[in-house]
């Protein structure tokens, strides 16, 4: 027997309602901008949480994939006159292939070794973006044309907000489906006990690669959208600190919680904006958040809250 609303359907509907109602409270372009940045970060974090929270693998290089997507869109539309959608797809496919190629050797590693390898990967991507001045404009970055879709130039805050909200909803829906399927259970089994998972017939290496590639592709797509939205990309998007930021968002929102990833992304995007002086100390505050969550709230915000509410009901 199926309950009327599965918890995940309820969650998805709530997110939808929030995303629809939110613009009613926006007073200026700046509010839209923060919301759009939150949404893009959330898309990356939902994918990253499948890798970190559900499968138990770490990546300190996902900003690299985000930046590759952004630059694929920038370079292909600007230098080679590709259509924006085409550039985005090519970027996503290229990032998919790249992440697949490096995933096999990298994901054989465990713990700190995996962290180091993904860290190295992100740094290499960042260096390439800085060095290939002909193509990328080097450290100064490069402008990106607007996103045109069958002759329609996407512009306006509300339109961009709508697009990001739709992509985010779609991503959350996909992630929820996956988590709730035999594939998602295999991923969680890898996290729970790789030994037992493999003896139960789960090809653990294959699933780790699969989810690494999927999360990299999501980051790439978010990067492409970001490039067109902001109209400008620079190597800063792929910097190590951005990767750490994504991981902090996932950890704060809650490991193995899809909605947690969204909440974590939103909080850590909005917070620095609220505290004007915060900018100089951003790195330190992220470090503090990471440590605080690890010490006081291992599961992260959303799972802790859910646990608390369940406890109240009983």
């Amino acid at each position, binding site marked *: 027997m199926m309950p009327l609303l599965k918890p995940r359907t309820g969650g998805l509907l709530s997110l939808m309602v929030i995303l629809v109602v939110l613009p009613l409270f926006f007073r200026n372009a700046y509010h839209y901008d923060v919301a759009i940045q939150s949404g893009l970060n959330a898309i990356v974090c939902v994918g990253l949480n499948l890798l970190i929270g559900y499968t138990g693998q770490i990546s300190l290089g996902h900003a690299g994939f985000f930046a590759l997507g952004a630059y694929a869109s920038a370079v292909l539309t600007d230098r080679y006159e590709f259509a924006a959608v085409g550039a985005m797809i090519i970027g996503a496919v290229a990032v998919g292939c790249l992440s697949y190629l490096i995933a096999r050797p990298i994901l054989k590693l465990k713990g700190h070794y995996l962290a180091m390898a993904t860290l190295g990967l992100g740094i290499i991507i960042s260096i390439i973006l800085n060095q290939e001045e002909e193509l990328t404009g080097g450290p100064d970055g490069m402008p990106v044309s607007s996103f045109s879709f069958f002759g329609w130039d996407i512009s306006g805050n509300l339109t961009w907000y709508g697009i990001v909200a739709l992509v985010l909803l779609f991503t959350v829906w*996909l992630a929820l*489906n*996956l988590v*709730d*399927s*035999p*594939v*998602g*259970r*295999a991923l*969680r*089994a890898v*996290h*729970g*006990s790789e*030994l*037992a*998972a*493999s*003896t*139960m*017939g*789960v*090809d*653990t290496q294959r699933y780790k690669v*699969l989810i690494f590639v999927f999360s990299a592709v999501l980051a790439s797509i978010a990067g492409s959208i970001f490039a067109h939205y902001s109209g400008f990309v620079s190597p800063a998007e792929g910097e190590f600190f951005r990767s750490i930021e994504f991981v902090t968002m996932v950890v704060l929102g809650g490991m*193995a919680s899809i909605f947690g990833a969204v909440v974590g992304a939103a909080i850590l995007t909005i917070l620095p904006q609220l505290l004007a002086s915060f900018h100089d100390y951003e790195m330190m505050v992220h470090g503090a958040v990471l440590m605080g969550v690890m010490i006081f709230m291992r599961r992260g915000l959303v799972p802790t809250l859910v646990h608390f509410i369940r406890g109240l009901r009983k």
Partner: protein
Amino acid sequence: MNLLRIEQLGKSFGGVTAVEDLSFAIGPGTVYSIIGPNGAGKTTLFNLISGLFAPTTGSIHLDEEDISGLPPHKLAARGLSRSFQNLQIFFNMTALENVMVGHHLHSDTRFFPSLFALPAIGRADKRSAEFAAEMMDYVGLGNYIHTDSDAMPYGALKRLEIARALASRPRLLLLDEPAAGLNPSETNTIADLIQHIAQDNITVLLVEHDMHVVWDVSDHILVLDHGRRLAAGTAEEIRSNDAVVEAYLGRRAKDR
């Protein structure tokens, strides 16, 4: 035909030889027990058979086909499953989900249909859930179906491992000390359960220190000592073997 045949198997870790020149064969439909003192190499033998370790020397044959060095998930696909001496529960899941992972190889695990939640996935998954619930009933865990596994008592977790292994529909089931840490009444239930499993035509390879269980359920017993075969035979033969009584059973043999 032998279901499992071990041929001059050896495994060493650096200087430590855990299993040495071991040969034996198991026919289908039997309960074959392996006993021996701590550190005799029993778990290492299980890890070799289930593909977690590659043998240093010798070979392992399933259905007379050499399976040495195959990875665990391929062996699972050939009908081999196991439980662990040190619990390997997926503590990030409910009890039922643990058992559903055991059903992985019989589930619809295509990526894109799962991603888009195609109805076929949901239907297949519902059958997996029903089958997993059946397996939990079978091992006597019917009350725990929706319990989070990290909220279950130790004795129940031991049986959860067996349910999960059974959900893969094995032909050969390796149980590594299923009765360790259980109280006497729980131990009796485990002995009954092993007999049930054997009656359902699943060959059982059992490692167990509790000799009540071993005498009760075994068709054949192999005694390991320092990684080598010390003796092999029926319960009667083992009980009256002086070398075995000396090395392992000691006063235990007179318990019964």
